[in-house]
C-alpha cells in the first residue's frame, strides 16, 4: 500500500516578506468567497451543467409549454406561440382518455404499493435469518429487477395469453376474456407484473433496514413472552418504518412513470384504454399527435398528483423520526 505515515512534519515556517504576506491575505479573502479549495467548483462544473441542461431547463420548459400554444416547427423557425393560460389544462382534464389514464394509475397504485410493502417486508424478514442458500435466494429475487422490461414482457405475454401456460394450468378457472385483453383484469395484471419485477430492489432496501433494528428489542419482546408474530408486529414493523416510507414513495414514483408495460403488454393501453397510463397518453398526445403543449400539461398534472399522493402517504405511514 502506498499509504504514508499519518504525521508528516510540516516544513518549518520562515518569516515572510511583505509581498508574501499580502498574497496570503488575498488568498484568505478568496478563501472565504470561493471556499478553501475552489478547484472543487471546476470538478463539479460538468455535472452541474448536465443537471441544468437535462433536469432544470426541461422542467421549466415543460411548465412553459403547458401554458402556451406550442407546436413542432422546423429547427430555427421563428413562430408566435401565444400564452393561453390554463387552456391546455382544461383541454386535457376534459378529455375522457386522460381522465381514464389517471384512474388507471390510481388502480395500479392501490394494488402495487400495498402488495410491494407486504411482500418485500415479508420476504426480507424471512431472508434475514441464518438460512441455507441465502445468497441464492437474494440473487434470484434480484434478477427480474436487473433485467430489461422489454425482455421480460415477452415471456409474460407467452405465459398470460389466451392459450398460455397460466390459463392451461387454471383450466376452467381461466378468466374470459383472458388476462391482458380483459378490461377489468388488464390493469391489475400489469400492477402484479410491476410488483414482481421491482420487488427484489425493495427486498434489499428492507434487508438493509432490518440490520438497524436493535437485537435488544427482540430479546426484550421475547422476555415479555411475545411470540414470533407478535414481535414482528411490535418490533420489526415499527423498526423499519423509515424504510417503509422510502419504499412507499419510490413505488409510487415508479408507478407514476409507468409506460413500457402498458405499451407492450396490452398493446398500447388496451382494451379500449383500460390500461393506458398517463405517461402513455402523454406520449400519444405529445409526440404521436404532435401536441407537446398538451403532453406537458399532462406531465405537470402527473407530478402534482404524485406530490399530493406522497404527502398523503407520508401522513398515513407515519412520521420518520
Amino acid at each position: 500500500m502506498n499509504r504514508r505515515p499519518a504525521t508528516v512534519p510540516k516544513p518549518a515556517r520562515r518569516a515572510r516578506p511583505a509581498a508574501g504576506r499580502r498574497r496570503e491575505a488575498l488568498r484568505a479573502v478568496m478563501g472565504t468567497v470561493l471556499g478553501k479549495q475552489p478547484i472543487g467548483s471546476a470538478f463539479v462544473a460538468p455535472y452541474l451543467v448536465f443537471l441544468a441542461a437535462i433536469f432544470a431547463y426541461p422542467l421549466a420548459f415543460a411548465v412553459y409549454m403547458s401554458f402556451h400554444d406550442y407546436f413542432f416547427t422546423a429547427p430555427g423557425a421563428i413562430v408566435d406561440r401565444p400564452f393561453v393560460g390554463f387552456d391546455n389544462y382544461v383541454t386535457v382534464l376534459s378529455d375522457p382518455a386522460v381522465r381514464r389514464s389517471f384512474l388507471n394509475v390510481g388502480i395500479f397504485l392501490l394494488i402495487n404499493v400495498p402488495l410491494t410493502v407486504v411482500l418485500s417486508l415479508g420476504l426480507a424478514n424471512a431472508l434475514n435469518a441464518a438460512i441455507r442458500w441465502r445468497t441464492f435466494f437474494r440473487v434470484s429475487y434480484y434478477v427480474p429487477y436487473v433485467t430489461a422490461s422489454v425482455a421480460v414482457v415477452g415471456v409474460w405475454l407467452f405465459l398470460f395469453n389466451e392459450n398460455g401456460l397460466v390459463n392451461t394450468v387454471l383450466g376452467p378457472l381461466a378468466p374470459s376474456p383472458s388476462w391482458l385483453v380483459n378490461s377489468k383484469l388488464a390493469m391489475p395484471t400489469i400492477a402484479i407484473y410491476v410488483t414482481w419485477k421491482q420487488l427484489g430492489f425493495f427486498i434489499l432496501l428492507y434487508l438493509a433496514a432490518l440490520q438497524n433494528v436493535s437485537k435488544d428489542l427482540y430479546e426484550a419482546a421475547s422476555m415479555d413472552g411475545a411470540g414470533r408474530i407478535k414481535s414482528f408486529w411490535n418490533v420489526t414493523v415499527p423498526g423499519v418504518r423509515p424504510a417503509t416510507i422510502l419504499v412507499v414513495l419510490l413505488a409510487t414514483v415508479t408507478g407514476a412513470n409507468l409506460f413500457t408495460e402498458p405499451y407492450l403488454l396490452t398493446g398500447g393501453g388496451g382494451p379500449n384504454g383500460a390500461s393506458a397510463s398517463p405517461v402513455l397518453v402523454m406520449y400519444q398526445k405529445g409526440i404521436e399527435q404532435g401536441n407537446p403543449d398538451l403532453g406537458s400539461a399532462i406531465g405537470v398534472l402527473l407530478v402534482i398528483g404524485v406530490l399530493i399522493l406522497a404527502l398523503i402517504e407520508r401522513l398515513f405511514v407515519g412520521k420518520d423520526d
Partner: protein
Amino acid sequence: MRRLLPNPWRFLTLLVGAFVFLFPFYYMLIGSLQAEPDPTVRGAFPEPGNLTGQNYVEIDKAISLGQSLLNSGIFTGGVILGTMVFGVLAGYALARLQFRGRGAVFGLMLLVQVVPFQLLTIPLYVMIVRSYGLADSYLGMIAPFAINSVAVFIFRQYFLQLPQELFDAASVDGANELEILLRIAIPLVRPALLTGVLVTFIGPWNEFLWPFLITKQQDLQPLAVSLSNYLTTVSARAANPFGAVLAGACVLAAPAVALFIAFQRQFISSSLESGVKG
C-alpha cells in the same frame, strides 16, 4: 431434519418465492428453443424432439442482433464513460473539497433522484430532436443519461470514508488536487468504481422509452427498442412469433443477468448503502 432446516416454513416460503421469480426466466429460455410453441405443462420441460436454434436465426434476420447489441453497447458505454469521468470528479469534489456551493450541489443531486424522468420526456424530445437535430444519433441517445446521479452519490460515500491524513500528507508533498484524486483516492476506491459501473449499466441497457422516441432508423436502435418494435409490428406475421421474441429476450437479458450474478456482492452492498444512507 430439524437440525438441517431449523425453520422449515420460512425456508419453504423463500423457496416458493425463488420459484416465482426464476420460473419466467427458465421459461424464457425453454420457449426460445422450441420449434413449436407448446403452452401445455409438458412444454415447460425440454423435449428433445421440439428443440431448435431456429428462433435465434429468425430474430437475427428480422432485427440483426449484432447491430442492435452494438448500439446497446455504444449507448451503455457512453453513459458509463460519462459517469466514470465526470461523475467521479463530482463525487470526489462533493466528498473531499471545500468550495462555495458544495451544499447546494449536493442538495440538487438528491432532488434529481425524485424528479420523474418521464415528465421531462416531452421537453427533452423537443430540445434534442427538434432544436438540436440529434434524432437518430448516439449523442442524442446518451445525453439525458450522461452522468448517473446514483453513481455520483455512491462515489461520494466511498470518498468520504477515506482517512483525512492521507490527503493532508499528499498536499504537503505538493501534489495538486487532480494528482491526489488520480494517484491516491481512485486506487483506494476501486470497489466503488465497479459498483458505479454496475449501477450505471442497468439504466441505459434496459432503457426503452427514450431511445424508442429518438431512433427511427433501425440500424441505430438499441436491442430493447428493436426487439419491442418486432414485438408490436412484425411478430404477428412470423411463423413462431413467441419463439423469436423469446430468443431476442434471452439475448437482451443475458448480459445484465450474467454481470449481476458475477458481481452480486458489489451490487447488493451498493443498493444497501444508497438505500440506508440516501
